[in-house]
């Protein structure tokens, strides 16, 4: 029996082995065809791919010309075209710095990791925002996918260290610190993120001394960072609790103090266990960056939304949403696959 007929048999068994199964298969097939045919006709068959303006687009099909014309905005927002090399350069430098982390091992990896963590964030703010020799670009000109990634990464840079501290605080033997950590975590986890972004954008300027302004974008990043830190803390706590008690006890028996036990023994192992959970929180963060829309910061979804108001391109709702949605889906799907592969790899023995 050939391989082809064997696979045919397998599919026959999967789809048509009993009358009931056959009925379900046919029913689903009809529904899928009924839904997909008009969609395919709209998105591919009748779609217009090349041209310059709305007038080039055939009716009854998607107008991908719109995406092509707006591509730069979807990626960079209203960032000046002549300066777009700066975020590009920062992206390249970050990739070049982060890629070796997956190859290197041991001390070299640790050193590179710490150097990247200390140097890249300020470099990014300088390159994208300007000043000190570069033309300044105000944050209200930033936008698009660039801004989505910027907010996700910088809010993550607040959330991860703060989350680790909170998780350690929640496990602390000092009652006051434990209480503070619990209150902080449960408060931020209990309120909607949209309210937190409003809160950050309204209250941060209010509680600063008169004359000290906090940038609009920075407020949103801080607000998001604080909430996600509370969720990160719970992810890290899972790892800390999964660790056998003997690890900390052995470290104490060797005469290590609290910070050495934590930094050298328990935390590295706990982080490895909780990395999949932390990645899931990061996915949630990427999805929640869209909420900056409510304080008129135009990330990828915000740019897509605001592009609908252009009188030269009326009725491009579906095209804009489909494009933005696909990008979000690709980012989050890749991250969730990575998280799942980490989970399958499992923590390396202790």
């Amino acid at each position, binding site marked *: 029996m050939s391989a082809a007929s064997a696979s045919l048999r397998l599919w026959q068994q*999967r*789809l048509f082995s009993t009358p009931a*199964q056959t009925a*379900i*298969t046919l029913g*689903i*097939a009809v529904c*899928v065809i009924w839904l997909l045919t008009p969609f395919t006709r709209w998105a591919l068959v009748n779609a217009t791919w090349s041209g310059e303006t709305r007038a080039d687009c055939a009716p009854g099909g998607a107008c991908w010309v719109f995406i092509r014309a707006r591509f730069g905005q979807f990626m960079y927002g209203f960032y000046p075209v002549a300066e777009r090399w700066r975020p590009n350069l920062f992206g390249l430098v970050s990739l070049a710095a982060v890629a070796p982390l997956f190859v290197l091992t041991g001390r070299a990896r640790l050193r590179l990791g710490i150097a990247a963590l200390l140097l890249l964030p300020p470099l990014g703010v300088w390159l994208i925002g300007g000043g000190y020799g570069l033309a300044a670009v105000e944050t209200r000109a930033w936008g698009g996918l660039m801004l989505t990634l910027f907010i996700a990464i910088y809010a993550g840079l607040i959330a991860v260290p703060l989350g680790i501290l909170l998780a350690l605080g929640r496990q602390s*033997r*000092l*009652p*006051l*610190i434990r209480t*503070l950590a619990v209150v902080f975590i449960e*408060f931020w986890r*209990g*309120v*909607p*993120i*949209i*309210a937190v972004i*409003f*809160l950050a954008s*309204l*209250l941060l*300027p*209010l*509680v*600063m*001394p*008169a004359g000290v302004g906090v940038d609009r974008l920075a407020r949103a990043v801080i607000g998001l960072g604080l909430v996600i830190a509370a969720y990160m803390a719970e992810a890290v706590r899972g790892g800390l609790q999964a660790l056998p008690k003997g690890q900390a006890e052995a470290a104490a028996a060797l005469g290590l103090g609290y910070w050495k036990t934590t930094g050298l023994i328990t935390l590295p192992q706990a982080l490895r266990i909780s990395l999949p959970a932390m990645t899931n929180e990061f*996915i949630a963060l*990427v*999805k*929640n*960056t*869209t*909420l900056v*829309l*409510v304080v008129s910061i135009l990330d990828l*979804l915000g740019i897509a*939304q605001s592009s*609908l108001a252009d009188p030269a391109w009326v009725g491009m*709702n*579906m095209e804009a*949403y489909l494009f*933005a*949605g696909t990008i*979000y*889906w690709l980012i*989050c*799907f890749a991250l*969730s696959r990575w998280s799942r592969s980490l989970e399958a790899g499992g923590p390396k023995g202790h």
Partner: protein
Amino acid sequence: MLRRLFYDARIRDLFWQVAISASLVGLTVFFIRNASQNMVNAGIASGFDFLWRSAGIDVPFTLTGYTSSDNIWALFWAGVTNTLLVSLISMLLATLLGFLIGLARLSSHWLLSAIAAAYVEFVRNIPLLFFVLFWYFGVIAALPQPRDSLNLFSAVFLNNRGLTVPAATSGAPFQWALAAILLAFAAQWLVSRWAARRKAETGADTPALAIGLVLCALVPVAALVWAARSTGWDMPQAGRFNLRGGFVIIPEFVALLAALVTYTAGFVAEIVRGGIGAVAKGQREAAASLGLRPGQILRFVVIPQAMRVMIPPMTSQYLNVLKNSSFGAAIAYPDVVSLFMGSALNDTGQAIEIIAMTLAVYLFFGLIVSALMNWYNARMALVTR
């Protein structure tokens, strides 16, 4: 002496706690002083007197009978009820849809399971705000004008201004029907307790199914039919350009509900799959070897055990729905965030009071949801001695 103090664990613990609380208090005082200074400079009042001022804000959709001449406190409650309304209905529908998708995912039919898996992967990797905007600006805005409404039996009309349904002219019969239904449920509860005890003591069976059907299905249906017949109906009429009469459910509500339900159902489906998957295979096999039928295995063996695994993550999904209902602010659904934190805050400028009240709403109802689910969890938990 100093050296001994420095190495005394209790003294060190005390020192750290005092140091941290002192710096927190210092920071708080710093913030409060800045805030009060800034508020004086900007001429913003403080305190809760603003709640009794007239709001003058129109709300397109309210259950509390709020009108724009009411005060801000009434506006707050109109927002809170709208938040609760969309949250509760979303929780219910998302649970139903999620269970269906989760069971489809577990189905032995390959195609059904693959489609359920594709749905879950699709929904979980896209921001909720995307769905909210998509349903509102993509789907509902693309629906026909009111005069070309899609209609169901000329009673329910769907168009780009929302969903128009027949409205009852009098609510009293429905209140009687609700009372009858609650009574029937209470009776069912008593009967099932009595039947279980009789079964345990004497082994005698009770016609539980028949009694249950009468009490839980026949009584509610009869009560609702009676109520529907004894009240008058204001039917929507298709006019030349617009619909007349009926009760209009605003498009913002429809879009937010659709987004919350389709999004949350993806997460619920995964919880259902995980819960049922967590029941050991030997449990089903043992039940089957005792002669239980497949339906009985599901009802008495699999679901009770799966529920224990599912309740905690379902609790956090319900809390998420409550919090995520605030996404309605992006499409101006009149919930507590958009009415109170948006409109009222713009009018009065009293950010601190308004933000505190809004956050308190979510924390309070979040606590209620957790408390109810914990109570349910405790009831379902394995009784060990």
